[in-house]
């Protein structure tokens, strides 16, 4: 371990230079960790906001208003598909809410509370009352409640246009995360829409499906289209092309930033090591004259890289966590933004890349050292 010992002494002999390059690596890695986690979390937050509480794949009849038959075959195929996390058959009924002066169009999504919860997370989103969805109960959005001063316990008169108006008891108010949804969407049990629409027990407006990996929706949707001819299979990725394009562009710009940061870090380490090799040329020449092999003199610079790379990377990861904590604290205080979750996989890649870049930076001084002739050092004093 003599090369390691010598590398350590060389670094200690020039503490300011050593600390500067460690700080340089740390800043690079901290930016990597922070930007990487920020972009990933931002994208995760956008995706979650966009599709977290909506189906990833929807199976419906191609003609609007016509029911899709939720056959035993379809139930088997959907339940047997790998990656499916929730299957929610719903019946949607368009009604008019009348409060005496105003008439407001509403879409009632009917289903069992337990199943609707899987996608719409009603119990989590309930800001007032409860979302039990028993017969005769309704859960409405916050904007509708606010606009018409509705609270749990109030009754709502709804007209579907295909029968007598029905009166429902408001039991809960939910925040669906979007003003439009909060104004126009309401939830009821499964029976009311079925009766109003005249559907059979196996007929639904749509079968809504959520997946463990939303980005895996396209091949599943394609397979289902083949298995259910005559059924319209909608894929969220096709319906949100613009969003995905934006996310993809954002990822690309993030990668560009990270690549340039890494290049800057690599150039920083490489130049410092090159300077160190020049500064220590006498010592290296003497060590070679004393019988140290080229491999060992080269290893001195590799160890210097490792020491600076590992210390700088470790400091960078800590600084990155600090930046994330600071950002999260700052945005939480102001009420804006979103929480950044440190990405372990991304941090592991940053650490590996940081150390690898440091090691690659040792190539030039190692090669120069191998070429160094000890005679030049000895004769030039």
């Amino acid at each position, binding site marked *: 371990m*003599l090369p390691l*010992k*010598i590398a350590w*002494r*060389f670094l*200690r*002999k020039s503490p300011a230079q050593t600390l500067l390059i460690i700080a340089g690596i740390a800043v690079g890695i901290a930016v990597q960790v922070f930007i990487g986690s920020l972009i990933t979390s931002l994208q995760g937050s956008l995706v979650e906001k966009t599709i977290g509480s909506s189906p990833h794949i929807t199976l419906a009849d191609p003609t609007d208003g016509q029911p899709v038959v939720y056959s035993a075959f379809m139930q088997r195929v959907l339940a047997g598909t790998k990656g499916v996390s929730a299957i929610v058959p719903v019946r949607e009924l368009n009604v008019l809410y009348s409060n005496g002066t105003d008439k407001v169009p509403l879409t009632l999504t009917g289903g069992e509370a337990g199943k609707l919860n899987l996608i719409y997370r009603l119990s989590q989103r309930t800001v007032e009352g409860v979302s039990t969805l028993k017969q005769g109960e309704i859960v409405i959005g916050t904007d509708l409640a606010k606009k018409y001063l509705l609270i749990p316990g109030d009754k709502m008169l709804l007209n579907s246009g295909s029968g007598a108006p029905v009166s429902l008891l408001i039991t809960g108010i939910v925040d669906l995360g979007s003003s439009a949804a909060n104004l126009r969407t309401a939830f009821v049990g499964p029976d009311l829409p079925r009766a109003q629409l005249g559907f059979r027990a196996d007929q639904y407006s749509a079968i809504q499906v959520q997946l463990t990996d939303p980005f895996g929706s396209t091949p599943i949707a394609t397979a289902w289209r083949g298995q259910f001819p005559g059924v319209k299979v909608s894929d969220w990725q096709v319906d949100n092309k613009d969003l995905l394009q934006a996310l993809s562009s954002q990822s690309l710009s993030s990668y560009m930033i990270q690549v340039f940061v890494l290049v800057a870090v690599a150039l920083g380490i490489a130049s410092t090591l090159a300077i160190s090799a020049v500064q220590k040329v*006498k*010592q290296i020449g*003497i*060590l*070679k*004259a*004393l*019988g*140290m*092999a*080229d*491999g*060992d003199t080269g290893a001195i610079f590799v160890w210097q890289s490792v020491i600076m790379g590992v210390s700088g990377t470790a400091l960078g990861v800590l600084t990155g966590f600090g930046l994330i904590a600071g950002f999260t604290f700052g945005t939480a205080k102001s009420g804006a933004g979103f929480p950044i979750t440190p990405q372990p996989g991304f941090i592991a890649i940053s650490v590996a890349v940081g150390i690898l870049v440091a090691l690659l930076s040792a190539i030039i001084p190692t090669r120069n050292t191998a070429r160094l*002739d*000890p*005679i030049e*050092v*000895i*004769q030039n*004093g």
Partner: protein
Amino acid sequence: MADALVAAAGLGKVYGTDIATRALEEVSFEIGAGEFVAIVGRSGSGKSTLLNLLGLLDTPSEGTLHLRGTESNSLDKRGRAKLRNELLGFVFQYHHLLPEFSVRENILMPYLISGGPVDEAIGARVDETLRVLGLDGLGAKNANDLSGGQKQRVAIGRALMNRPAIVLADEPTGNLDTENTEAVYSLFRTINEEWGTTFLIVTHDQDIASMTDRILELRDGKLVQDVRNAYAGAITR
């Protein structure tokens, strides 16, 4: 001399290819174990070139060099480095100590390069070397904190650490005053007599050469004189 420690036969060295410069030509000699030899000559006579060849820091263009029976041309770069570490000790005009290490560590360096374990026996060897060199109590000091004479003695200690068969010294007192010069030669002679170490000392100073047992004189790259010095012992003592 069948059991010669150093055997040079027809050694030659030419630098450059487009414009060839001959630095050494047809140099042949043998040196036995325990000899105390001076290599003299004017500046540019080929002394340092010969020392670089003997020290395995350079390779001959012509001829052969055997060190303790090993032909230098048969070794690759790594093999030459290993033999240099085991068989040879160097003392240069400038001390060339490593400022990042203590006196003790500088002396220990050739042994550390050989990869041996630093046990009690090695610690005792360093202590003995420090004592012989008159550097008792200075082992923990940084090499930079010593006087010029002390630094050169540390460099001698470093050359002796692996108990080499041969010490090659290139103008070892060139940067020292008269008092330190005499002290260094006295030290060389003591080690030569007590440990049986062979010394090859390159110098342009005839007074110093006169203190050795044998003088090899180079002129224009050729060995022009190889004489025994009958008075050397009387002068040094």
